């Protein structure tokens, strides 16, 4: 399978709350630090990328925020304007009038139009070789299929017209595993694992995009090694607790409770992790990122994740 950083267009998706944006941002940062001219595109603009990179507001026009790292925020209306300008040579603002309303209407009426403008813009950046790598902070698991399958859906619905003629080259880029790949970010918890397994099956069936990587985020550390857990159990018995309390000069109960909690949390998650590995095709590589016991989000966290990603990628 083609290495993640050797592709040109990488979509990063995941269930809400698993750290999709964090991973996408860290991946883009890592790639740029490895010398790739990288574009990071936030599709559902919530402003998280700007917050993580501790930079100002991000717009449709790509901006270089760190050496080799460009960021943009998807705006389908702006994408349409750009497209019309490039393809129809229409001075948009002057003649179409309330383009926003008209566009909103068509996009609402015709499913897939918004999605095609997003995918189209991203594929365009790849085709024109403006960047070595385009990392997409894509919609969450529930919406990513609609996004990736948009060119095909448009092909089925629209028989003629400009959009129709454009979907072929987009499909070509999306379907080429040497250029395009999908990353699913998950955590070792029940629902994220379920959604990941369901999504992996749907990607295979309903899209032409290759699943390039499953990234498991927030993997908890193992507390005890061989035999140590048995020792810990003995430590939790009343006489041992009393002895420890005496020696450590304070009640150790909450500390032992916390360790017990950490052990059980880790164990429950290990079960979900096993289920995930068993349900994902063996050919799809999996990466594991540690749970970060940190106080703040922001650049420091992104750097930590980027470093962990780099180690997993074998750098």
């Amino acid at each position, binding site marked *: 399978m083609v290495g993640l950083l050797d592709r040109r267009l990488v979509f990063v998706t995941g269930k809400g709350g698993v750290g999709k944006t964090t991973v996408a941002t860290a991946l883009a940062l890592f790639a740029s630090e490895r010398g790739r001219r990288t574009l990071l595109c936030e599709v559902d603009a919530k402003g998280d990328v700007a917050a993580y990179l501790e930079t100002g507001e991000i717009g449709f026009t790509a901006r270089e925020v760190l050496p080799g790292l460009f960021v943009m925020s998807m705006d389908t209306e702006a994408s349409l304007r750009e497209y019309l300008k490039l393809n129809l040579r229409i001075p948009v603002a002057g003649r179409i009038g309330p383009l926003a309303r008209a566009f909103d209407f068509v996009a*609402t009426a015709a499913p897939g139009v918004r999605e095609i403008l997003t995918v189209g813009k991203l594929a365009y950046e790849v085709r024109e070789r403006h960047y070595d790598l385009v990392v997409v902070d894509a919609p969450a698991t529930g919406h990513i299929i609609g996004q990736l399958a948009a060119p095909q859906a448009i092909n089925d619905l629209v028989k*003629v017209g400009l959009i129709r003629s454009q979907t072929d080259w987009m499909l070509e880029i999306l379907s080429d595993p040497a250029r395009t790949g999908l990353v699913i970010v998950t955590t070792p918890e029940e629902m994220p694992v379920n959604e990941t397994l369901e999504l992996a099956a749907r990607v295979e069936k309903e899209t032409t995009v290759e699943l390039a990587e499953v990234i498991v985020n927030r993997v908890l550390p193992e507390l005890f090694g061989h035999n140590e857990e048995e020792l810990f159990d003995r*430590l939790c018995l009343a006489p041992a607790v009393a002895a420890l309390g005496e020696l450590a000069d304070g009640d150790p109960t909450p500390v032992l409770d*916390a360790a017990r909690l950490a052990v059980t949390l880790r164990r429950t998650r290990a079960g979900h992790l096993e289920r995930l590995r068993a349900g994902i095709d063996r050919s799809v590589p999996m990466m594991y990122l540690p749970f970060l016991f940190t*106080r*703040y989000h922001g650049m420091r966290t992104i750097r930590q994740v980027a470093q962990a990603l780099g180690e997993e990628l074998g750098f």
Partner: protein
Amino acid sequence: MSAVLASRHADVTGTLDGLLASREIVVACGPGGVGKTTTAAAAAAMAAARIGGKVLVLTVDPARRLADALGLEGIGNTERQVPLEAFTDAGVRPAGALWAAMLDTKESWDSLIRTHAPDARTRDDILANPLYRNISGRFVQSHDYIAMERLFEIHAEADYDLIVVDTPPTRNALDFLDAPERMAEFFSSRLLRWLIVPYRSRIVNFASRPFYQVADRVLGTQFLQDIAQFFILFQTMYDGFVDRARAVQRLLAERRTSFVVVSTLEAVPLREAEFFAEQLTARKLHLGAIVLNKVLPAYLRDPAACAVAERLRDRAEPLSAELAPRLEESDPNQVRRVLSEVGQSFLDYRVVAQREAEQRAELGAVPESLVTVPYFDTDVYDLAGLLRLGQWLWGEEPALTT
């Protein structure tokens, strides 16, 4: 067992008890991945068990586990009663009855068309239209709209004392609130009329000409005609549709409806939840409670415990030398590793617990009740599990079980 362990010393504050007893509709909303569906199901199960009456949980999340937990072999678009045995198996004699239904978007749209279509031919034409199939199946906003529409329908037709609704995982948590209004606007749009006119009469209105030129070149005439045909068919249902959308909107604003915002104390979901709470208030909708899930136990922030943890980590060596003989453990190195690991783990989790506490202190608009639910280290697999979680929603700490 250890769900209780996780929760010991957790600060119990509010309860959903009063809210669920006094409202007819409770909408659980908030960001994705915070346990919204499980919270809605637990709240409904508790209401059925404790308050009584006929309670429905309307879920949009097709989690098989939830169906299993409710003792149902899959939940369909039609409501089904949760068998009484599911309660008795959990050792509870319910005061009322629990029903469950899962939203099937496609199915709900079809049923809506059947209700509103003026005649059989229009109905069949719409159901067969490729654009309709696309919209009803994939169109995201249609999902939001139909959830509210289905709620309205059930509320109007069935005699539930309480309906607890789990909202769809939207890109934007607010989408479903705007969906009825957007749908009504959409069908009464002037642009829609522009679009339909040329298809009917082939006389292109002068005003719509530039729009057409662009639309035609981009999308192609045939596709535009498909759209137009679809909307001409839909127009026949226009009045019923818009009336309905407005009625749904009113129902959400009535005093009998309340919203519960569900979140965790992680920064990103919490920010989204706060924004949501503000928006509810701005729209004059009733924010009944905030439920905070997966909250770490309060003992992690105890300074005395923290001091002990630091000593275990920093003085693991001398401590283990003294402790090993008392444990009849021959290898003091192993004791040292365990002590230091236990101490470090506490301090790690303490960082997260402290971050959570700060997030919580910064919570802006706090409604009548703020409910915290601890980190459950096992997943909820049966009704007993739902009810245990539900006890937290009632402001109770579940009794210690083995």
